[in-house]
């Protein structure tokens, strides 16, 4: 009887070990599954690797690869933002002045976080009301999927709180071949220094 109990105990112990191993393996795989999407957030994504189907503020089609040949500074914004986005536009204006002084051409790309509300017409009004009329400034709208994809690939975290978009101040600089060269954020005092 006691031997039977010992055997039972032994089996129970082995079963317990097996269960533990199975659970550990499962947990490891779940962690791996959770980690995998993050692998897409690799640094150095080029313009070619980003979604290409965008509309500018005149509702014309624009691909990001079409901007290769010039340096590109890309940010994301939403038209109803009155906190961070105006500061980002100010940084872009400062950068524009720097490249003007050097006689260079840089394309400034602003991709809308909120395509549902930020249509080409809204962006067109946005640039008119703020005097952002230069041809090398591109205010882009795309599909929700393309927007989320671009944000993820370039590391623009955002979420929406009703009609508000919670986001950060950030821009990505690409060289003339479309390769990523710098990431600018709120810790960089003057974005124009990166040019």
């Amino acid at each position: 009887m006691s031997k039977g109990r010992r055997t039972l105990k032994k089996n129970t112990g082995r079963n317990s070990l097996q269960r533990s191993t199975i659970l550990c393996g499962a947990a490891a795989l779940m962690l791996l599954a959770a980690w995998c999407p993050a692998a897409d957030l690799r640094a150095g994504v080029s313009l070619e690797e980003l979604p290409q189907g965008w509309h500018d503020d005149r509702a014309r089609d624009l691909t990001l690869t079409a901007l290769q040949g010039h340096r590109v500074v890309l940010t994301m914004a939403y038209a109803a933002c009155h906190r961070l986005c105006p500061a980002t536009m100010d940084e872009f204006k400062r950068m524009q002045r720097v490249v003007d002084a050097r006689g260079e051409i840089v394309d400034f790309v602003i991709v809308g976080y909120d395509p549902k509300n930020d249509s080409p017409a809204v962006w067109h009004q946005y640039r008119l009301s703020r005097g952002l009329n230069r041809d090398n400034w591109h205010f882009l709208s795309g599909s929700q999927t393309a927007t989320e994809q671009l944000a993820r690939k370039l590391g623009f975290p955002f979420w929406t709180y009703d009609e508000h978009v919670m986001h950060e101040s950030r821009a990505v600089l690409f060289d003339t071949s479309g390769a990523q060269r710098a990431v600018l954020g709120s810790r960089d005092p003057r974005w124009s220094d990166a040019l």
Partner: protein
Amino acid sequence: MLNKLLILARAIALGAVLSTVSLPAAADSVSDAKLEELQKKLDQSMKMIEALGARVKELEGHTSNGTVAAAAPAPDPQRLQAVEQKVAQIETANATRQTDDSGLPIHGFADVNVGNHNLYFPYAKGTNVGSLDFYLAPKLGDRVVSLAELIFETGPDGHVGTDLERFQIGYQFNDQATVWVGRFHTPYGYVNTALHHGVWLADSLRRPKFVNFEDKGGVMPSHTVGVWVTGAEREGNGKFLYDLYAGNGQQIQGGTLDMQTGGNGHGAAIVGARLSYQFIGGAVDGLLVGVNGFTDKVNDDSTNPALIRLNMVGAYAVYDTDTWEHIIEAYSFHDKNLNGSPGTHRSEAWFAQFGYRASWGVPYVRYERAMLDQLDPYFNEQTFGASYYRSALGVRFDINAKSSIKFEVAHTRNTDDRPATDYRPSDAEIGLPQQYDEILAQYAVRF
């Protein structure tokens, strides 16, 4: 050894099942069709790449053996580029699918406060924990929308309570019509549906007192449990916005308005509407104007409950630009006692706030005034239902994109002498000062 392998295999199988189950359920049929199509394209592309890879290896082999086949055609660079581009597109499409299915992110807001009075309950002083606000907006498909706002906050009694402040499930037909069912912020004025519970979001340290939430000194039904239809239509250089709603009639419970989340006892409803116009572009870009109103049947939880027909009409204007934030809201109440001593009562409340968005911060000034008829049981039975005026001066500083510090000095004077009634103690017994000056500081974050 075999057992170990068996265990490992089980672990992998279980892990695979769990990791699959941990993803949300299948997308809708349209997404499935697209994915299937993308999968086919990916398979075709992979086959093409394999074939090209094999060909390259073959050519490399020839090169290393010094026997380059002069007649062998080189891979077409354009075709290779096209294949690479196609694969990249498919990769990004698949990556998007992973994100959609990667679970529900939790975001929210939190705030802590220091002052010579509690910012909502002036009988308390010192440091106070404001709220910890969890905001969830699970994606349920292209048209099915949902949101929940779960808050842990300090109540009038100083204890932390939990409240499902908003819980809505809706269907978006198009931009012109979304139908929500659940508990939502009643669409009146601007503040109630623009600034919500996340304190960090607002430039000011707190809402005007009379439009604050029911359990923070507000006297209006800021939450409704019912059905809400909302939408917008672009028209020239502007946009029309509308809201129609109906829900459970509110009840005053223990001196606080309750939205009757589980349904009300008297079967009456609140019915209301709001119509707004937003100017886009031109000299008045950023101006939003609107009118709103509701009718509600409210009772209380006393043994001999009062029943009040509450009628409100109001108007508001907001000028919200990169430089300015000005908000004006005005309300007029025409209430009628439906039992007890008959009578009609008229009350008014309004506020005006002017803010300037400077590069270093947002200073603001606000004046609010509520003239609430104390013969109206609707106001008289509410703990914070006294008439008052308040003038306030404040400033917001953003530390970074996720945190801010706000300061406000304010003077408040209650202009009604409110003795005890059968329903509630006097203001003095509650500890509400007749007039008081406040110096308040708030640290607010989003996450």
